[in-house]
């Protein structure tokens, strides 16, 4: 883990040489679009998130900045500019959209930050790194396994044209419990995100690393629960139709 991460200082505008404040995609002085290469999502919204990878974000301000930049970077505005600027405006607009969609959601934002910080998060890394593998806690696995057994039983019942009201209501209760646990996990993520931000402000890289590790674990558990909630609800809705 590196020490406190600040993104590289915004460079100067290629056209007027003014220092780039605000978003590195757009020169505030002359309004020219800037090349988007090598700019991460947090940098795109640097004026909102403070040119630092912060997780506690004012989403209303984020939305305002998104709309402002969307208008200023829109390819239509560059219809009569050079081919290079037209190309940059397309790239900048695409990056802006991706950045906004990712940063406005807590879970996506956290996952994105952890990936930038070198954590292997998400399905594409499953099992790739054998030494750093994270086995979920045994109690969670037991619970997941049992629940899957119940779901299978319900599907089998349904195939036979039967339905088991007791099982149905039991699974409904399970679904609700998981939903509330998901909400709890999200609250936890907000807290850990604040700890991450505080670590940044205090130059406490160890504190940051701990917060990042906690968040990675929370996201694992969340992914499991989210899949389960989806499966349970799917099974419940088809069960109802019978």
């Amino acid at each position: 883990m590196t020490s406190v991460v600040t993104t590289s200082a915004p460079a100067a505008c290629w056209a007027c040489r003014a220092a780039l404040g605000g978003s590195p995609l757009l020169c505030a002085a002359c309004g020219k679009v800037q090349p988007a290469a090598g700019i991460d999502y947090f940098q795109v919204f640097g004026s909102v998130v403070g040119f630092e990878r912060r997780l506690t974000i004012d989403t209303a301000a984020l939305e305002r900045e998104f709309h402002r930049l969307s208008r200023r970077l829109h390819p239509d505005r560059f219809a009569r500019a050079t081919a290079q600027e037209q190309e940059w405006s397309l790239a900048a607009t695409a990056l802006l959209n991706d950045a906004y969609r990712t940063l406005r959601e807590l879970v996506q934002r956290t996952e994105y930050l952890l990936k930038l910080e070198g954590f292997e998060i998400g399905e594409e890394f499953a099992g790739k790194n054998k030494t750093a593998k994270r086995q979920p806690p045994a109690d969670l696995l037991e619970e997941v396994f049992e629940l899957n057994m119940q779901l299978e039983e319900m599907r089998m019942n349904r195939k036979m044209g039967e339905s088991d009201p007791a099982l149905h209501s039991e699974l409904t209760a399970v679904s609700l419990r998981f939903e509330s646990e998901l909400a709890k996990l999200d609250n936890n993520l907000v807290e850990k995100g604040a700890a991450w931000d505080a670590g940044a402000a205090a130059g406490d890289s160890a504190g940051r690393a701990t917060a990042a590790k906690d968040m990675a674990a929370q996201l694992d558990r969340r992914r499991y629960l989210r899949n389960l909630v989806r499966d349970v609800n799917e099974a419940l809705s088809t069960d109802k139709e019978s």
Partner: protein
Amino acid sequence: MAYSDKVIDHYNNPRNVGQMDKSSDEVGTGLVGAPECGDVMRLQIRVNPETQVIEEAKFKTFGCGSAIASSSLATEWVKGKTVAEALEIKNTDIVKELALPPVKIHCSVLAEDAIRAAIGDWKKKNNVAETAEVAVAAH
């Protein structure tokens, strides 16, 4: 993505699906999962205490076709092997046998983990040291 014929065969006709008595001293149970994709896999072995040969293996997997095929194959392979021999099974062997594409390699890793977890559980129950080489009495 297209599954290989072997994966489809194991998926349609999974070998050794089921469960054994978890509380039996002869039975080792491994329950593993991949948080990334939400798969969960239970693999059980029944070991002959005299010969340390795995006489029976059962599995139950909730996950994609590759995960089911990997664990099905794993139960076939461990059966008849001694505990020590079963530990030699590598996920890469499973990948080769089932022709798993790169994105499904983690399914084979999970199956190898499940074998190790089941054997680990059996060793714990029977006070076999994790590090000690399991001598094969049959020889």
